[in-house]
């Protein structure tokens, strides 16, 4: 692959994301006209002086409901896809995902704990913060339990991740049973994954972690590539394997944890986007990670548009939607993977 054709493909992905963002901003229970959106955005940025044609209601919908939600979808989708791509390289498995490290299960436990204790309804932003803390604790737990027996082998990490996820899931169920009924609904909506009612605070919180984490991961692209050759070869090329892996897993946990904290669990996003794009831009991280960010962002922006608009009566859970698309994709990818190996 020449650099030029890879750059063209990444530019095409950026174009697709821009289009998806515009569509998702325009469509919804109330449709907003494209030129009205662009006018209002330009006016907001101080680039146009004309009052927008959207009207006060339209502007309110655009700036307090639609725009934060659409941007959050892009951040979360992009973040999860980049994390997936990084973990697939580190674990040398094209089907790896943040869930393997306990991110989803840990976040769920944190969220349920916040709801159970009643913090979610009394303390501002308690649920996402608790979910974030839960996700990070789970990954840290997995890393140090797996590493306790000496050096953390990849195999050991994966199996420990399964065990820690199962334990967190069990604690989550027990807490749910013990939680007052009127609170359970809050947490069920969060567990199903979705962006309903998310505002600018969520966007800012997610952006801080996702954008800085993704930027650092892209910067560390070459060490990621060296690590994807296997531990022995990476070490023989002079890479400090353990320190590099710990930093990458830490960054991945921050990005995936922040994404999951604001959007709940969105299964298969981290798997689908990099897997689908690898044949087009290659596996080298400096190209794959930006491509995965754009592809994952587009995927979740469109999935969230579907969640809002597919049913006229109620909103579909976004996580259920990504799972409905992702699970068959995963099974097909698995078959292709096994068929070749």
């Amino acid at each position, binding site marked *: 692959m020449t650099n030029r054709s890879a750059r063209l493909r990444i530019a095409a992905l950026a174009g697709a994301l821009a289009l998806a963002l515009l569509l998702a901003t325009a469509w919804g229970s109330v449709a907003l006209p494209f030129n009205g959106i662009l006018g209002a955005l330009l006016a907001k940025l101080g680039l146009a002086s004309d009052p927008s044609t959207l009207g006060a209601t339209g502007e309110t919908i655009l700036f307090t409901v639609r725009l934060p939600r659409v941007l959050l979808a892009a951040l979360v989708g992009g973040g999860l896809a980049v994390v997936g791509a990084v973990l697939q390289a580190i674990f040398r498995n094209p089907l790896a995902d943040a869930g393997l490290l306990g991110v989803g299960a840990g976040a769920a436990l944190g969220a349920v704990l916040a709801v159970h204790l009643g913090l979610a309804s009394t303390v501002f932003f308690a649920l996402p913060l608790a979910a974030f803390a839960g996700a990070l604790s789970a990954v840290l737990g997995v890393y140090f339990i797996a590493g306790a027996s000496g050096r953390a082998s990849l195999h050991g990490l994966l199996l420990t991740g399964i065990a820690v996820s199962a334990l967190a899931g069990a604690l989550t169920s027990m807490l749910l049973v013990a939680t007052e009924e009127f609170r359970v609904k809050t947490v069920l909506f969060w567990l199903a994954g979705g962006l309903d009612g998310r505002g600018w605070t969520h966007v800012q919180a997610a952006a801080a972690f996702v954008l800085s984490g993704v930027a650092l991961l892209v910067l560390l692209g070459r060490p990621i590539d060296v690590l994807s050759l296997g531990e022995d*070869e990476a070490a023989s090329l002079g890479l400090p394997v353990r320190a590099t892996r710990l930093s990458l897993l830490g960054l991945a946990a921050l990005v995936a944890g922040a994404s999951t904290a604001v959007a709940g669990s969105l299964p298969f996003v981290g798997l689908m986007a990099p897997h689908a794009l690898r044949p087009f831009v290659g596996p080298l991280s400096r190209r794959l990670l930006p491509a995965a960010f754009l592809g994952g962002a587009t995927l979740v922006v469109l999935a969230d548009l579907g969640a809002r608009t597919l049913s006229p009566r109620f909103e579909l859970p976004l996580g259920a939607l990504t799972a409905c698309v992702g699970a068959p994709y995963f099974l097909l990818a698995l078959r292709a993977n096994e068929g070749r190996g």
Partner: protein
Amino acid sequence: MSAGELLLSAHALAVERGKRRVLSDVSVELLAGEALVVVGPNAAGKSTLVRALAGLLEPAAGEVRLCGRLLADWPRDARARVLALATSEEEGPDALRVAERVALGRYPHRGPFQALRASDHAAVARALEATGIAALAERRLGTLSAGERQLATLARGLAQEPRVLLLDEPAAHLDIGHQLQLFRTLDDVRRRGVGVLAVVHDLARAAQWAERMLLVAGGRIAAEGPPAAVLASEAASRAFGVRIRGHAVPSLPHPHYSFEESP
């Protein structure tokens, strides 16, 4: 660099895996431009030796020196510019192209952030050429045979432009044509002053290629010397549990070997 300069040396080296001592009291020296072959039965500790010499395993006792300096005292990147390791187990991602994989051998020279320069691309091209896989440069690893992947690993090692090249069964998956080409490549490399140490399973091939042979058995060095002498030794017969006989063939530069199960 002067031919015969001592590049790599182990002294009284011991290595443990878990609590088990898999290598004891191994001393070995590798000179510039030398071809040293390591042979031995399965589970003798050959791969452990190569990995310990490459600094991937900590010695439990003894020491390894590279150019006179303790292996552990080398900065990682500097060490990787002097010493390269290629094993038959390494595999990159299936979607990676051969040229991209070989270019990762320039990591010790450019580090995580510097862009590759013309000299790096030239080193990659030379390595692809030397291993005979220049035509595969744009192929993805997943589409290659095991032997072709192995040559790509060797090319990555050559692209490092090391002074010491350590190889663990470099010919494991190669057909006879590629085997001959591989050993010719290794000869070219050592003629430029690189010290080459290789674990080779095929005793006859090992004897043909190397100047010096190291027989490892039971985690210790059982014999060392010119290949013909090592293979003729009682230690070799005992280590493999076979009778090894060399037959001089007037028209060939090397003896022909025959192997029979010991009674």
